[in-house]
């Protein structure tokens, strides 16, 4: 079933266009990296604040609220650029173990992200949430890089 999906994507007009446009893939990858920057830096700032490494510049709930917004926006752009990258080279990416691992871990990270606002409002200790979110994020980035090598 995956094979027929892959072949259908590979034959699609979008796929043909991306593959025949030399600047398309580097541009999509660059947009992908810029979005990762937004997500990674924001997540790191939250973790540093929660672990007391960074000083409090604003109420924690304000930081969490605006950060979560930025991260969801980043994820949206990542899914868009990522989808186009997958459509461009479906045979190389969809069956790839590193890619599948990345998607699975991404699901986990998204679940944690959903828990953030409520956890922040309840005044609970956010160290576990911040720490595991960061760990999952690093796994996602490393797995993402590994797609090109496996």
């Amino acid at each position, binding site marked *: 079933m995956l094979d027929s999906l892959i072949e259908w994507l590979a034959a699609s007009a979008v796929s043909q266009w991306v593959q025949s446009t030399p600047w398309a893939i580097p541009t999509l990858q*660059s947009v992908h990296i810029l979005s990762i920057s937004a997500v990674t*830096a924001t997540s790191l700032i939250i973790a540093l604040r929660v672990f007391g490494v960074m000083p409090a*510049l604003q109420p924690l709930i304000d930081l969490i609220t605006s950060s979560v917004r930025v991260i969801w926006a980043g994820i949206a752009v990542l899914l868009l650029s990522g989808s186009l990258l997958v459509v461009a080279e479906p045979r190389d990416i969809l069956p790839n173990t590193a890619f599948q691992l990345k998607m699975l871990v991404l699901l986990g990270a998204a679940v944690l992200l959903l828990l953030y606002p409520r956890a922040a409002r309840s005044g609970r200790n956010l160290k576990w949430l911040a720490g595991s979110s960061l760990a999952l994020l690093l796994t996602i980035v490393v797995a993402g890089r590994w797609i090109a090598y496996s």
Partner: protein
Amino acid sequence: MTLLEFCRWLEDTSIATAIAESDWLFPGLEAVHVIALTIVVGSIAMVDLRLLSLVLRNVEPARLIQSTLPVTWVAFGFAVASGSLLFASAASHYLDNAPFRFKLLLIGLAGVNMFVFHFLTGARGARFAGATSLLLWTGAVFLGRWIAFA
């Protein structure tokens, strides 16, 4: 000794050849490089967007800069270290690579911009520095991706 001769010597060193010939050292260093640069770009973008009054308007720019600068510098250290090792593994090839050279130029200009801003006061200077910084770093990310395609 010319620059090219130095690069040829560099890529012949045991550490450089180990990276070039290893299955996992080069991808591993790339992963470190990507994670580091996303933190550099993300944390700088946070400040730039604040200078443009687009985000975190309830935080004073000076305090934001003061708290994020250590994050930026530590990440930059990792980026330079991993980048240097990656460069060493095929030094003469990268020396010849136009996107790579332009990337270093843009990063240098971003540094100059930051240095100049340090001495500029007033809203106009801040906005110019923020916008210029965003453009330079975005360019650096695109050029960084282009290295592999040139």
